[in-house]
């Protein structure tokens, strides 16, 4: 019995080593390509394994010099938008989720149903009227235009609702006896209790925003307002003459998320399962 289990273990581990290699290959491919000059790559074929004789970080130097360092402007835009979006979204979505999670009131179920409706209708369908609205509000090509329409996130509301409904009502009553206002209870008592929820949601929201493409493509009209995915996609050309910039630009753009993931795996998983459907 024990021997049979060992044999199974070895097969499974080998299988997963193979799967992991296949799955991580595209990222490896991107990195190894970013270390080669495209001229050399097209002349004698891309090398698949690291070779210090032909590989160096020259392409990465181009990120600084390419069009007077536009890459840093894209990077800065991405950081600012992701930060503002995450903070404002956490604040407003947690308020709503908390309201739905701990109070009983007349329209509670209707409002919660509406949250689910918004969650199920993709933004892509509404991009055209939303674009028109942004023009009317005169926030086209601004950070506000990217952030505002999706700041109150239904997914985050859903998550905060689930989380806050699990907190004991005794905390609420204790706060009331101490003379806190309803909002004082939220900020002084409940918010600290919801820190794990804030952690999970901040990572999920920041990652989604960092990688988002469709809406920024519609709202941001000029090169100096672009975020990383937009800027990098503007480098794509059918003939590959931007490879030297595009490849290192892609590698560097993944780094912040990967670093965040390595240190906060638990939060990532918690945030992702926020769909909260009972298994």
């Amino acid at each position: 019995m024990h021997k049979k289990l060992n044999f199974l273990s070895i097969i499974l581990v080998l299988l997963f080593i193979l799967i992991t290699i296949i799955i991580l290959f595209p990222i490896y491919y991107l990195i190894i390509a970013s270390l080669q000059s495209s001229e050399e790559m097209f002349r004698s074929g891309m090398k698949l394994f690291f070779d210090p004789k032909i590989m160096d970080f020259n392409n990465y130097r181009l990120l600084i010099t390419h069009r007077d360092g536009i890459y840093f402007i894209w990077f800065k835009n991405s950081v600012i938008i992701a930060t503002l979006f995450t903070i404002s979204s956490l604040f407003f979505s947690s308020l709503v989720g908390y309201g739905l999670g701990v109070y009983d009131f007349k329209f509670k179920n209707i409002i919660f149903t509406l949250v689910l409706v918004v969650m199920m209708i993709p933004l892509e369908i509404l991009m055209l009227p939303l674009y028109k609205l942004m023009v009317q509000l005169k926030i086209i090509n601004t950070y506000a235009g990217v952030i505002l329409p999706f700041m109150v996130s239904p997914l985050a509301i859903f998550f905060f609702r689930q989380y806050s409904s699990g907190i004991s009502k005794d905390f609420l009553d204790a706060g009331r006896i101490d003379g806190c206002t309803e909002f004082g209870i939220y900020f002084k008592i409940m918010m600290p209790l919801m820190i794990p929820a804030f952690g999970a949601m901040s990572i999920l929201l920041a990652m989604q925003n960092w990688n988002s493409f469709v809406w920024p493509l519609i709202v941001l009209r000029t090169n100096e307002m672009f975020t990383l995915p937009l800027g990098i996609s503007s480098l794509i050309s059918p003939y590959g003459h931007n490879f030297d910039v595009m490849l290192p630009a892609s590698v560097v753009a993944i780094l912040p998320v990967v670093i965040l993931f390595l240190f906060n795996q638990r939060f990532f998983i918690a945030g992702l399962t926020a769909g909260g459907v009972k298994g």
Partner: protein
Amino acid sequence: MSNRNHINILYNKNLAPYIFVLPFLISFLIFFIYPIISTFIMSFQKIEGFNDVTFIGLGNYERLINEHFFNALKTSTIYTCCILLTLVPIPLILAVLLNSSALKAKNFFRASIFVPSLTSVIIAGIAFRLMFSEQLATGVINRIIVALGGEAIKWNMGYVSGMVMMVTLATWRTTGVNIVYYLSALQSIPEELYESAEIDGANAVQKFMKITIPQLKPIIIYIFTVTIIDGYRMFTEGYVFWNESNPGDLGLTMVRYIYQQAFQRNDLGMGSAIGVVLLIIIFTINIIQLKYFGLFREEE
């Protein structure tokens, strides 16, 4: 006096929940209800400038009956069916294996398989463009095909090969997320179910079919629904391969068709009509899902 009223409001626990949910209501009205109404109105209009609008009845919808619209509908539908075939079963099998007690170094494998989900479609797409390039200099897939004695494929020039690229890209990026969903559901299946099945002499396959699958039904339905919606909303997976134009309507999905008509050809009325059709498709899927499976319902 007014100051006291002010204080009373802050202490009023009947009023407080309405203030808490206010951000949602405001956002819902401005960024959801208004755009939906506005889409419907625009779909009946010919819009040639912000102040140059004429009502043309069903004119835009009549123009929808054309080859490109049906190509877009076809591509979105085929794409959706394909990702259903990959993104529902593959992560399920991987999750069951990852959950198995026989597997060592689980956390390492789990984390590695999740890494693709951290990338944006654009960056993942750049890696895939490189791998699927028709030139042997960079295209590793064609290198393999040629090494096996086949002929190099012009991946981004054919319908089927183009579909393969988009589906592979989506599957690669989303498998890790779905595994996380399946794993959290698998871990909540009571161990006793398997133990009593073992006493009854059930083998691994029987346990999988009779216990695992029925217990996972809610999460399978959830992933199924989300995958359908993701399929019909797809834009970027096509955009990253055909970013400037869609030769022969390759990569032209419903959302790309909205984008093309509204933003590249400035035909907002037509774009809105496509939007309304897409809205009806998504709405129908959700209604069917709610009526027959009642997602989110059981947790009330």
